[in-house]
């Protein structure tokens, strides 16, 4: 079966980005349990006391499931037999749904589960077509399976965004004092408020109000932009850009999925062209500048306020603007990918490495 499906670069990119997302998910989980108890087994056992989830399988099964997910996710990134690995990952991810700690199965995890089940199903369908028709005569059916696979994945992504917006049509979302939009907006505008002489409450409310309605407008427009052929790239970029402030708050899981689904909305030629341009502009000088600025922002900022301020600069283009400024002027698409890619890596690092280090001193101590 291997890579016989002709999804080509689009499918390979999807699998690689999904693999990175799964790795990020697992690393975050390890970081969380590490700062909790320092022991994977204890972590699972202790949650089992509180939640009914783990009573189905002993903790050791949970441990094995996570290790296998980690290995398979790595396999998605580095090997060429992604279709088979994705099918195995689909099975193990479904099993893992029963070994998840409170607050339970998360929204992004169910998207990944569906995506993997879809790829496994249509992969199996393609395999079936090849087996039943013999060599050289299966092209028509495998082509149909490919088209169906991409269509199913697109539907999954589009439905997700539709319901993300649809569920927000409730009283609490529009209440500017309670809305969840505050969580994402207030940290970004706090440093700016100190620079103004106006009423900070009014300013926060005004900004949150803009955020509340803009979020709805973007999320409701995305399904239509993505489904319409002429606007799908715009929709893709909008989806990626929309997730940047979310990443800025340390939420990596969902943006990782958005990144993974992006290649599906491109054509093979468009994606090939994008990667060629990206690689031709990826010089050591650019990388060095970007790395230096990133290190300065995240390792050398003296205090939390500075860190927040630098986050604002970072997420409005900061280092990427400097490092990839000329590319930005020439090709906005490349800028977006480089920028988002760098942001993703840094957030991943930030979440896993630095949070473990900074919170280890308050980690749970059984003797305390």
């Amino acid at each position: 079966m291997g890579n016989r499906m002709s999804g080509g670069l689009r499918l390979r990119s999807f699998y690689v980005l999904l693999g990175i997302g799964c790795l990020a998910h697992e690393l975050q989980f390890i970081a969380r349990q590490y700062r909790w108890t320092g022991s994977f087994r204890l972590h699972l056992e202790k949650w089992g006391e509180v939640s009914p989830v783990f009573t189905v399988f002993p903790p050791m099964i949970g441990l094995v499931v996570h290790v296998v997910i980690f290995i398979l996710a790595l396999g998605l990134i580095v090997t060429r037999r992604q279709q088979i690995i994705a099918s195995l990952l689909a099975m193990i991810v479904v099993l893992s749904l029963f070994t998840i700690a409170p607050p339970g199965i998360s929204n992004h995890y169910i998207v990944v589960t569906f995506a993997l089940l879809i790829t496994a199903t249509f992969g199996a369908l393609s395999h079936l077509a090849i087996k039943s028709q013999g060599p050289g005569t299966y092209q028509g059916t495998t082509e149909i399976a490919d088209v169906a696979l991409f269509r199913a994945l697109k539907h999954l992504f589009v439905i997700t965004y539709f319901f993300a917006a649809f569920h927000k049509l409730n009283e609490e979302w529009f209440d500017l004092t309670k809305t969840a939009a505050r969580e994402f907006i207030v940290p970004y505008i706090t440093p700016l408020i100190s620079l103004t002489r106006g009423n900070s409450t009014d300013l926060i409310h005004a900004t949150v109000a803009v955020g509340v309605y803009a979020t709805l407008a973007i999320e409701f427009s995305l399904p239509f932009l993505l489904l319409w052929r002429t606007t799908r790239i715009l929709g893709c970029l909008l989806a990626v850009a929309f997730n940047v402030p979310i990443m800025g708050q340390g939420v990596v899981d969902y943006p990782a999925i958005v990144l993974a689904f992006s290649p599906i909305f491109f054509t093979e030629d468009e994606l090939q062209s994008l990667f060629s341009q990206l690689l031709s502009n990826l010089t050591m000088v650019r990388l060095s500048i970007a790395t230096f600025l990133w290190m300065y922002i995240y390792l050398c900022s003296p205090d939390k306020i500075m860190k927040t301020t630098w986050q604002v600069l970072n997420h409005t283009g900061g280092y990427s603007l400097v490092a990839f400024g000329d590319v930005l002027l020439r090709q906005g698409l490349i800028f977006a990918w480089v920028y988002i890619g760098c942001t993703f890596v840094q957030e991943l690092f930030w979440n896993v490495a630095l949070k473990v280090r900074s919170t280890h001193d308050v980690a749970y101590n059984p003797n305390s």
Partner: protein
Amino acid sequence: MKKITSRLKPRELRFRALSLGLILLFDSLYIINCLAPYLGLKFNFSQTMYSGLLPTAENHLFFPKIPIFQYDSYASITSIDIVGSETVHRKNFESFVESARNSGQFIHLNFLKYHLDRICREENTSIAIEYQTYWKRRVYHADACATPRMRQYSFVQLYPSCWPTCLDELTRWARKADGSGTWQR
């Protein structure tokens, strides 16, 4: 797809129908998954992240609640009296109930039943419990251990354990689950 259709053989047509059927199946399952809060089926993993939608899904501005299922059962425990069990788990559970009551949190019945069942596994244990459901119905069990339906729970969490969220409390509880003390600070 149109280009393909024009030159499809009968076998390929059947294959295409199968593919479309599978797409519809996945779409339908996923849409039901996302509509589940309004059906009273489940709230978790329904793409409600950061939406402000209540677990009972009754604050949506125009989509009506269609309670085909009734798994969205939350309760506020008014009294609980456990006789027999002296385990750490029982003490932690009582502390949790007290904390939830003080902070006005509703506890999901599935979560409640899970813990009642665990405590009831101790020999000669009985639990008298009275609670008021979110829908204002008062329920009293003289001995929840002897009531089978009060001990039947789902191992997949379809709803948040508490509402408003009690994740911090649960985290503290889990940390102290080895018997090193009660979970409350």
